[in-house]
């Protein structure tokens, strides 16, 4: 529990690490907006090219970016497949006749069952999942085993491919961009930047400083609470609670035995912390000076101008085309 990393920040070199968090947040918003506006292939490819260039120039750990994208894979695959199957606009690109016969269904079932049993032992689980899915459709479309009791058609349309492609690319770009932000910015700096970027909301009586204070205290107490949870689990284990096994009902009881003390301790902690903060002259809503100051450099101006240029370029290309 001594080396808990909060967030995904990894110290590194490169200009992105030195940049003001405010710049990164605003540029992120501009670039995300651009990703949504792009509607043609060439611009999208250029954008992806620029993004890859940014990863290299900024000396970002590519493996970490990929690991950030991994949980997104299923979502992307499903979106794309759904588009292919159900979007029926535009020209017809391809069409297959699906042959539903008892023997075909048996073949498909065998494929699925094989996948089900070997999947745990396979590397690249995701690709095998997609391959199985495509395999099921391919079997129906190509195999002609015995008489069919029903037939269906699978039509793929132009728009389905295009829309699917754009949705996938947009999501990839957006997640990569935000991964760059979290990889290159310390949680505390991110918090400070967010507070500063959100400060215009004060007009609507939203107390951004207090929100930032809440976030920073939460960040500070995550390791403490994890430590606490660990201690309680050990204490409960010594009284016979087994956290690793049991039926669903037992699991709930185990979680309750962890959560109830956690809640009580947390309330007590917050009470004491509030006292300590007040004793040190903290008054909610009062102005405070700041130890941490964000410094705006030349690189920040450049980065902001570039991202704004990207946004305008994308908008003009959309208007012109």
């Amino acid at each position: 529990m001594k080396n808990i990393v909060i967030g995904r920040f990894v110290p590194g070199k490169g200009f992105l690490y030195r940049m003001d968090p405010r710049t990164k947040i605003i540029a992120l918003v501009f670039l995300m907006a651009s990703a949504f506006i792009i509607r043609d292939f060439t611009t999208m490819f250029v954008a992806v090219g620029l993004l890859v260039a940014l990863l290299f120039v900024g000396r970002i750990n590519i493996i970490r970016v990929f690991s950030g994208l991994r949980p997104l894979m299923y979502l992307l695959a499903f979106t794309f497949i759904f588009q292919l199957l159900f979007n029926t606009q535009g020209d017809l690109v391809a069409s297959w006749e699906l042959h539903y016969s008892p023997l075909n269904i048996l073949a498909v079932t065998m494929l699925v069952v094989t996948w089900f049993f070997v999947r745990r032992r396979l590397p690249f689980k995701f690709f095998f999942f997609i391959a199985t899915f495509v395999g099921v459709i391919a079997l129906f479309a190509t195999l002609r085993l015995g008489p069919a009791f029903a037939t269906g058609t699978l039509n793929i349309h132009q728009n389905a491919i295009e829309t699917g492609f754009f949705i996938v690319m947009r999501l990839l770009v957006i997640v990569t961009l935000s991964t760059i932000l979290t990889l290159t910015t310390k949680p505390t700096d991110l918090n400070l930047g967010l507070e500063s970027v959100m400060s215009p909301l004060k007009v609507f009586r939203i107390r951004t400083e207090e929100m930032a204070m809440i976030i920073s205290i939460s960040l500070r107490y995550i390791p403490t609470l994890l430590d606490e949870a660990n201690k309680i689990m050990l204490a409960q284990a010594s009284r016979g609670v087994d956290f690793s096994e049991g039926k669903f009902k037992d699991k709930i009881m185990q979680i309750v035995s962890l959560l109830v003390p956690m809640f009580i301790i947390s309330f007590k902690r917050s009470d004491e912390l509030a006292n300590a903060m007040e004793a040190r002259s903290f008054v909610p809503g009062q102005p405070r000076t700041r130890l941490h100051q964000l410094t705006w450099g030349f690189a920040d101006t450049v980065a902001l101008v570039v991202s704004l240029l990207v946004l305008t370029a994308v908008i003009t290309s959309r208007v012109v085309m």
Partner: protein
Amino acid sequence: MRIIDIENLSFHYRAGTPVLEDITLHVDKGEWITILGHNGSGKSTLSKLLVGLLRAKKGTIKVGGLELSENTVYDIRKKIGIVFQNPDNQFVGVTVRDDIAFGLENLQIPRDTMIERIEQYARKVDMADYLNKEPHNLSGGQKQRVAIAGILAMETDIIIFDEATSMLDPKGRNTILSMMKQLNDEGVTVINITHDMKESLYGDRIVVLKNGKIIKDDKTDAVLKDQEILEKSNLEMLLPLRVLRLLESENVKDEKVRSYLWQLSLTG
């Protein structure tokens, strides 16, 4: 010169069960007083009343001539710092540097002064090498030292240690105690709230609290030798003092001294 004047102070959470009753206590500037008492004697409540975290039901508190009220509570908090019992629950900042800065930010100290003071007081509590460390990488004693630095940086006249050593190991406890001594030598008024007899050895004066009442307020050595008062408040006299008392009362010769010491070393 008086720095704290408490007159007829009473407090209760529920009517009928007083936590503090008719407390009158005066503290001089630069003094080190120990408030000694068992759990539930009301000693921590007293420290919370002093900085206005709780509001007294009766009586007055004056700090540096200023009477505690809703209007003065923030000025009074600038004069008194409290080091609380649990090192984890008073660490506000994400790092040591941020935590020392917290109080200074609240006082709206300009950033340049803040940076100077953080360096200065971190060095003073011997935590200058840890400024960028996070609290979960520090020991309890180190966290308490950071808490002290945070209060010192605010340059308060009075520091209350509210059982500040009770959750520390012996080593951490000793560093905190020697730090208290150093600060007191430099003119800081120290109020140490504790139930530990050894800690009360330090300091000029002991105030013994029992069930919300002051039952003794006297010089340290007088209180430590007062068997009656200590028994009354469920505190045990320190072993050497017990030896001394026995020797005095029995008017012993050399051989007897030995046998008594034998007995004591076996039991104590």
